[in-house]
């Protein structure tokens, strides 16, 4: 979805047309969920926050200002919602839960399932920060600069982390 399409859908939201939100949801639910999940490490919490995100988007559609890159805008809001969620709950251990999507996929071809699990397992070898950066880069399609700004880290560090993470992932024979 490009900026123009996004603006169009946001405009539809502003006209109370749920189809506008639905279109954005269809396109970005995986992205938002993954961004939130990488922070919360809990499927239920990530679902709560993702739902909250789209409900919030419906309410604040009028505040969107075109021209600054809608993906970064969406991700920033999702990221902040997740951080705020953590603060609110004062949760300290978010890493114990295993996502149940690991158990899904019975209908997939065996080879595909093995590959999927392997990639997930490989991702687990990454540091949390690396996983976030990989997700923001690949799923979010953000630039290193945007990621650096979002995570409040130097751009060089972000780029280096990403390269390191990708190298680790590629080294896993998939």
């Amino acid at each position, binding site marked *: 979805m490009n900026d123009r399409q996004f603006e169009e859908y946001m405009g539809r939201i502003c006209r109370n047309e*749920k189809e506008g939100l639905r279109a954005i949801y269809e396109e970005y639910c995986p992205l938002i969920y993954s961004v939130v999940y990488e922070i919360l490490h809990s499927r239920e919490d990530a679902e709560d926050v993702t739902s909250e995100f789209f409900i919030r988007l419906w309410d604040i559609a*009028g505040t969107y200002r075109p021209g600054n890159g809608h993906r970064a805008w969406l991700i920033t809001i999702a990221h902040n919602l997740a951080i705020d969620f953590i603060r609110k709950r004062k949760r300290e251990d978010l890493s114990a839960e295993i996502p149940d999507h690991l158990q899904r996929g019975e209908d997939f071809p065996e080879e595909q399932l093995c590959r999927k699990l392997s990639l997930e397992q490989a991702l687990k070898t990454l540091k949390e920060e690396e996983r976030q950066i990989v997700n923001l880069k690949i799923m979010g399609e953000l630039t290193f600069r945007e990621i650096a700004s979002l995570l409040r880290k130097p751009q060089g560090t972000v780029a280096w982390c990403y390269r390191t993470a990708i190298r680790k992932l590629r080294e896993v024979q998939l």
Partner: protein
Amino acid sequence: MMDEKQLELEYRNMKRQAAPDLWDRIEKNLKEHPERVVAAAEPQKGAVDKTVSIGTYKRQKAGRTYGMAAAAAAVLVLVAALPAMRQRLIKAPEMSGSGMAAETEAAPETWAEGESLVTGGGAAGDGAVSGNEVAGDSAASGAGAAEDSTASGPGAAGHGPVSGNGVAGDSTASGPGAAGHGPVSGNSVAGDSTASGTGGSGDSARMEAAFDGSGIHSAAEDMASGASIKNGDAKRGTQMAYRPLAVPEQAVTVEEDSRYFSEDILGDTSLLCGGRVLSAALEEDESGRTARVVYEMEVDGIYYAEDYVSSMERITVESPIIQTEGDTAFVLYQLVPGETYLLPLLEADDRYELLYPFAPQIQMTGEQEYLFHSGYASLVTQDTSVAVKTPEGTNDYYYDRMLVREDGNFLSDLVSLIEREAQGRK
């Protein structure tokens, strides 16, 4: 070894498959916004949104409804202005001055359906917030200029709030020294207004803020919320549009992310005072470089003091210069003259500094209504609602982390928090 492109593809597929289907859940919880439909179908009529716009930030408060009287009042107020406002970008007042951010971008407007139009500041990076539409406002305008500033220009701009102006016109105001030095240009209130100034940066030791004389769509909002605005008084319940102080090129500035906010910093509070900001200015250090922001404040009350302090009517508060990132350089998180804040301060060498200049200060936006950021986690209650502020710049970390709490316990909660943190230091 897997190809990087293939890896990315696999990754995306995996994440897409992992995403749950939440649509039913989301759809069930969507709030109705009937005013949007009304506005779309009948642009000549207006209605008050549940989303209450307060100056440069928008506030969502679930379940807040306004009575028929308020809606009717809003309709009356907005009838004239709505058709013209729709789809229109309001140009922010431009300011010119040698060597400083000369122009503010066309202020992107936030179209709150069926209610007054709220324009935000310049785009991220510009920081300037100006050029507000009054939206057919018949009540308030011209509130922006620092009260002690000189303002010129037709229409509503000028000294303090002016009520009763039928604004929404295209007026032009100009004055010397817009954002440069000295007097403040009184910008027109509504429509495509332009303000120009001749002042330049760096040619004065103290550069007064250039604040718009823009009133904000207060009528509908305040009628709806029951807030009242008194002539000549600070506009509580609204936030005036303002143009932050422009930072000269050679100024001594501090990075916004030099420090992170933490509640335990409150343990260092020397003084917690509330009051209205009278003026904001940049000051030079001994070497002649602009190095700090100085606020003059009228003190309403002192709520916490580390040591004994005698009563005071005014206080001077300093802050390092935190600069917006972007094409233009403005002071980030600047206190707005005319607005009322609760300020935790640090005393050093008989001077008071903002305890935490790297974040927005707690603002009193109404009677027992406080706008604060989510870093104050201990102050968040069930009744706290979210406010979406217009970003002041690309490095405005807090614009979507602002909260509003409206209850009489906020102040005592804040004082308790300070005391608790201070106790923890001992």
